[in-house]
Structures are given as structure tokens and as C-alpha cells.
């Protein structure tokens, strides 16, 4: 009896393991409109409204938490004002949230009017409703989908600069892969100078600019923008970040350039999708 049971157990587990590997293989081998990808899109379609609701519920707690963290760091300098601060907490928190939203909206408006995008470019405003819960993928879900004109590979920006690109779309929501994702590559150049390379993300959230020829002069502090090469999904001149360090080794063909992104991905909220 026990032997039979053990045999069945082994068969079940072996079958499940084989199924998992098969699923993985099919996922990577099929096209982006294959059955597994379609099921995936349906799943997001079902979960997205719930994620949106949860994000709304969680937002006041996030704001409160951020505010409390800010307050904690300032406590040593403001001890004598603590009583007064406590009375004003609610009001200050509300003001901060409003201010932050105003800044974000102003930034988005500036980005729209910055003439970075071709004449006649259309945009879709969106809000981040969910973030990846794992360190392996830097993605966010936004509340604009194909119904708003969003398509895969549309560029996503905010008032500070380049956020990422759309990698999956359902009628109501889209998934955006951030430039900090390890699978993200963005053609970019430094200003001034115009040294060209590829901005590559990493699991740590740091950006590196790769494939910059050693003969190109790049120094810390230079601005990095998208280069808008022919065929690129990003138009030329979208701010990406600032060069923080440059390393050159004799054995390397290319320079190793670290870039600090302009966008604060931890507080990402309002974004603009550049519709293709």
C-alpha cells in the first residue's frame, strides 16, 4: 500500500516538474500573441481592477509612512517644535501629498511641451497602480491600456525623464518595464560630447552605460539622454540620468560608466505614455 502510494507520489511530482518546464519552454518559444501570453493578458485584466483598488487604499498609508519617515529624520533638529508639529501633522501630510502631485503634474506638462517629441505626438496620462513584488523584475502596472491608445513598446516618461517602455497591454491597464530592469536596454548619448552607448538596468536599480568606445571622452556630471537612433522606440533627447563615475581598464574595449537616473522609481506615481 505504502509502496503504491510512494510510486503515485513520485509520478505526480515528476509530472508537475515536467509540466513546469514545458510551460516555461512554451512561454519563451511562442510569439507574444501565443496562448500562454494571451492567458497572461487575461490574468492581468482580471487582477488589474483589484490592484488599482488596493493601490488607492494603500496610498494614504504610504503617504503617512513616508511622512513619518521624513519626520523621524528631522526630529533631532526640531525637538522643541514637536508639539506644534503633532498638531499640524495631518495638515502637513495633506499639503505634502498635494504639493508632490502638483510637482509631478507640472513636470508632466513641461515634458509635454518640451518639444522632445515629434509634432502631433499624442500622450496618455496614467497612474502607477501596482509594482512588481519581486526583486528580479522592475516593472509597474499603469491604469491606461489599449482603450487609451497605449501599445506595446510605447515610451513612458514622467516630469523627471525616461521611465521605461510598455511591454504588455490589456484594454484597461499596461505593464511598463522600467529602465532599471535588467532586461532593459536604451540607446543613449552623453551631453555635451555625444558619446553613444546603451543604458542597461540591473537588479540593484543602478544604471550602466555600455559599449561606449574608449576614445570617447566622458566625465562625471555629464547628462545622459536618449540618442533616438533610427529604429529606436525612444525619441532623441529624453533625459535619462547623470554620469556618476567612469572607469577605464586597459584590458576592456569599452568604458564602464555608471549613471544615476533622474527618475525616482521608488516614488513613481504619475506618468505619461507617448503614444506611437
Amino acid at each position, binding site marked *: 500500500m505504502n509502496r503504491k502510494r510512494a510510486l503515485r507520489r513520485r509520478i*505526480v511530482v515528476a509530472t508537475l516538474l515536467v509540466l513546469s518546464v514545458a510551460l516555461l519552454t512554451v512561454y519563451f518559444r511562442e510569439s507574444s500573441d501565443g496562448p500562454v501570453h494571451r492567458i497572461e493578458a487575461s490574468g492581468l485584466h482580471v487582477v488589474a481592477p483589484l490592484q488599482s483598488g488596493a493601490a488607492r487604499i494603500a496610498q494614504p498609508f504610504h503617504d503617512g509612512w513616508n511622512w513619518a519617515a521624513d519626520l523621524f529624520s528631522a526630529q533631532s533638529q526640531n525637538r522643541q517644535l514637536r508639539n506644534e508639529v503633532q498638531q499640524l501633522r495631518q495638515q502637513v501630510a495633506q499639503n505634502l501629498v498635494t504639493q508632490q502631485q502638483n510637482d509631478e503634474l507640472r513636470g508632466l506638462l513641461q515634458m509635454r511641451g518640451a518639444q522632445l517629441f515629434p509634432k502631433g505626438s499624442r500622450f496618455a496620462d496614467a497612474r502607477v497602480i501596482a509594482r512588481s513584488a519581486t526583486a528580479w523584475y522592475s516593472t509597474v502596472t499603469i491604469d491606461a491600456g489599449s482603450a487609451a491608445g497605449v501599445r506595446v513598446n510605447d515610451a513612458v516618461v514622467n516630469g523627471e525623464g525616461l521611465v521605461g517602455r510598455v511591454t504588455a497591454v490589456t484594454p484597461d491597464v499596461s505593464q511598463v518595464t522600467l529602465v532599471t530592469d535588467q532586461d532593459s536596454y536604451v540607446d543613449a548619448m552623453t551631453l555635451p560630447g555625444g558619446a553613444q552607448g546603451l543604458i542597461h538596468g540591473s537588479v540593484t536599480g543602478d544604471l550602466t552605460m555600455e559599449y561606449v568606445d574608449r576614445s570617447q571622452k566622458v566625465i562625471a556630471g555629464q547628462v545622459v539622454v536618449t540618442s533616438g537612433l533610427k529604429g529606436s522606440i525612444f525619441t532623441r533627447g529624453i533625459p535619462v540620468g547623470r554620469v556618476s563615475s567612469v572607469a577605464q581598464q586597459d584590458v576592456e574595449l569599452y568604458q564602464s560608466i555608471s549613471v544615476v537616473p533622474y527618475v525616482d522609481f521608488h516614488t513613481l506615481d504619475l506618468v505619461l505614455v507617448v503614444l506611437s
Partner: protein
Amino acid sequence: MSQRMPAIEKPVEGPRIAVELARLGALLIVVVLLQTVVAPNLRVLGANPDFVLLVVVSVALLRGAETGAVFGFVAGGLVSLALFVPPGVQSLVMVAVGFLAGRYAETADLSPSVAPIVTVFAGTVLAESLSLLAQFLFGRQVPVGYLFGHWFVPLLVLNTLLAVPIYVACRWWLKGARHVRLPEA
């Protein structure tokens, strides 16, 4: 504290199977929603809790290796599909976690107060190791220091802290469930 858990009761049959499946199905929906809707908004110590692992381990402890593996496969697959990540990896990892947690429950002397903590701790280590291996095979790299400091250790602490509450909730939901142990041969 270290009392030996009684052997599994007579296998469920007939209408009880339908009830059992319904309870597991409902638990599946809840854990998928928890992982896709709640977990992304719960960032503690720099990590998001892994509700799938917590529930898979609890189900495996309460229902055994086979059920744990099947539950892990389905839960992992559904969560991956809903979160737009390659679907086979999470399934593979959760099958391994569910199966091994179930085998542990079937063969070891368990104290109900310690078993969930130990198993979730070990399960998290196993799951993250397998995920790391899978990501390495996909060509994704991560500095070890960053992985441990910013992700692995916080996740381990967070999951371990949540082990008992989640286990108790699962035991309450799967009414009458208890640690499984194979009858003596």
C-alpha cells in the same frame, strides 16, 4: 511542546472530497489575490512577503506532499500569469517547496508550534535559491551582497514572522486539518 502529531486520518472520500477541493480552490484564489494585490503594497524591511510560499507550505504541512506539490504548481502558475513573469519558474519552485514540506510533515516528528516556522524558513531558502539559479540560467545577474542585504534576509525574516499566522489561518480554513504523518508500515 514536542508532542508527536497523530497519523493522518482516514483519507477523505465521497462528498468530503468535493468540500475539500472547494476549500483548497477558495484558498488558491485568496492566495493569488494576496500575492498580486496585497503583497506589492506591503513592503517591510525592503521585501514583499511571499504569500504563495507561506500558503503552499501550510497546505503541504496540513495535507501532505502530493497536495502540497499540486497546490504549489497551480498557485505558482496563476500568480506568474497574473504578474506577467515567465510562468514555469514559480510553478517549478513551488512544486519543490510543496513536495518537500509535505514529505517533512509526513516523515518527521513535528511540533505544531515550531513546524511552520522551520518549514517556511527552509522553504524560503530553497525557493530563493532555486529562483536565483533560474534567473542565473536566464542570464540575469545580481551582486550577492545586494541580494542578501536588500532582498534575501529581509524576505526570510518577513516570511518567518508570517509563518505562524498564515499557518493558523490555513488550518482554520481547512477545518479538521492536522499535520500529516504516514501510518507506520
